């Protein structure tokens, strides 16, 4: 390990008090402190979610009590139902699901192909093109937003979901990078053997790489879903017709209606969060590994 030599640890340190030593040499006290802080911060993290749920179950009178009640006097479960009719909740949800679904398909298919081209086919200029492609991650959306809006308007896509969905079919540099990392680890012998057996590039891609890539592809699909589901600015620009709105635009509408129905707003927010929360619990491992991949290998 070369790294060892570079790390200078002072040889002589003044003797520290015993409690400080037991604290700093990383045993029980450190753990207790870590626990304590994590728990306090954790409660702080959960509090907004708790407050959302408890508000969602209050009456429109109880929400304006001060100091507020910690739990609803009488849980108003019908608030959840009411919130889905106060705004066309299910319509917005459906629109969102359609956009998410198409975005996932486009992203997964295009990114897998692109990553294969960058990772498994040797061609002159490949690494340079890859660097250029990767640098587009840093491009702020604001720079391209206006010209894209103009062109989408000119071809009549303004007011439809196409501007949100179609670009997904042309790849996403971050996910290509992630998939490429994966593909680079697959030994060449596999594809060489297939090549000798007369398989074409597309055959190798489809029959050898895609099955091996499935875990990485599900990570990409998951992140794409979360990204599309959370998106606000895109729909805000392009979806002009209320019947096409996504759930994020719909939630924002609550704010603009007269007489703040906070309990319904919280109920709708809670319902909106359910899909991502459920998905997270079902696919926790994929999520955690994916986050590690996006962050570290950079």
């Amino acid at each position, binding site marked *: *390990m070369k*790294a*060892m030599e570079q*790390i200078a*640890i002072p040889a002589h340190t003044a003797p520290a008090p015993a409690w400080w030593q037991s604290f*700093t040499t*990383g045993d029980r006290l450190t*753990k207790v402190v*870590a626990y304590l*802080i994590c728990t306090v911060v954790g409660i702080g*993290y959960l509090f*907004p979610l708790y*407050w959302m749920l408890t508000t969602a179950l209050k009456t429109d009178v109880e929400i*304006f009590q001060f100091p507020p009640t910690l739990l609803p006097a009488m849980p108003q479960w019908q608030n959840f139902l009411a919130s889905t009719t106060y705004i066309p909740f299910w319509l917005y949800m459906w629109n969102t699901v359609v956009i998410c679904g198409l975005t996932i398909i486009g992203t997964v298919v295009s990114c897998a192909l*692109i990553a*294969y*081209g*960058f990772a498994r*086919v*040797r*061609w*002159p*200029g490949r690494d340079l093109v890859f660097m*250029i*492609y990767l640098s587009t991650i840093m491009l*702020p959306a*604001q*720079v*391209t*937003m*206006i*010209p*894209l809006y*103009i062109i989408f308007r000119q071809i009549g896509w303004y007011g439809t979901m196409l501007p949100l969905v179609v*670009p997904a079919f*042309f790849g996403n540099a971050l996910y290509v990078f992630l998939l490429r990392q994966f593909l680079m*680890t697959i030994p*060449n012998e596999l594809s060489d053997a297939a090549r000798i057996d007369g398989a074409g*590039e597309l055959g190798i891609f489809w029959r050898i790489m895609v099955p091996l890539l499935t875990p990485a592809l599900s990570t990409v699909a998951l992140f794409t879903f*979360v990204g599309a*589901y*959370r998106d*606000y*600015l895109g729909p805000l620009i392009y979806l002009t017709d209320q019947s096409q709105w996504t759930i*994020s*635009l719909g939630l*924002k509408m*609550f*704010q603009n209606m007269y007489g703040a129905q906070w309990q319904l*707003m*919280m109920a*709708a*927010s809670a319902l909106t969060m359910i899909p991502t*929360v459920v998905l997270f619990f079902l696919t926790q491992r994929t999520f*955690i590994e994916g*986050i*590690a991949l996006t*962050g*570290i290998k*950079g």
Partner: protein
Amino acid sequence: MATSIKRREPFRWRSLAIGLAFISPAVVGMILFAIWPIVQSLYYSFTDFNVLQSPYWVGWENYRELLDDRVYGIALRNTFYMVLLGLPIHLLFDFLMALLLNTKIRGLSLYRTIFYLPSITPVVASTVVWLWLFNGQYGALNALLHLFGQAPIGWLTNPAWTKPSLIFMGAWFGGNTILIFLAGLRDVPASLLESADLDGANALQKTWHITLPMMSPVIFYTLIVSVIGYFQYFTEAWVLSSTREGAAGGPLNSMLFYAMYLYQNAFQQFKMGYASAQAWILFAMVLIATAILFRTSGWVYYRSED
């Protein structure tokens, strides 16, 4: 990879064609959704353009106008406030939380879940919850202050408090970064930490001399991505500050950020040329910030793979 057979490339043109065929979506996408719009945006920034009529060349007029635009100045200052103050606070908080989670505490996956949940919930849904928490009259935060006998705070109504409120709320969205840092911490070789233990190093020394250098590539990556992201700060402030009348920016425009003002100019007032000039200045700022970060990246320690 190291064991791959070295063979001559007889089909250079063929492999080029195959490679380009596979990456063709990326090439087309780059041209359509990056390169062409960048050029077009630069052109628009020198024009007067309201979408309905064709662009009219005005030279540097838009840029000159920005110099005198007081509101633009406010948006610029607010954005720098977020990049220079909010971002360091958030990254420091995220790093400390990751360090604490890395002490091998029990129930790690529970904590991990709790910290990560806000990161995957739709931004509007969770920001709407904060709108209610921050409510001056009936909000839970002021109720908490009341409990301790403190005067209520105008979280979103007092211009002095709005940005601190946003930073406070932003810590709640830090889960993603916490998990990235946590994954990085787990990659720090245990052998190094153990040998430091043998040398009698304490936790602070180990963090400073081993963990931080080993983590520096992850920190650097996160820093770059965050700086770019914070320059584009939009949705949270937009939702928290927008009014029924369709205005946004909060009291005295104290929550008006760069991307918000740009959006207003482009899509509410249809001053496309003016907004494009803003977009290009934003682009330049992001490039300069990234360049500065790379230039000063001497502290980043890349460990050799072999």
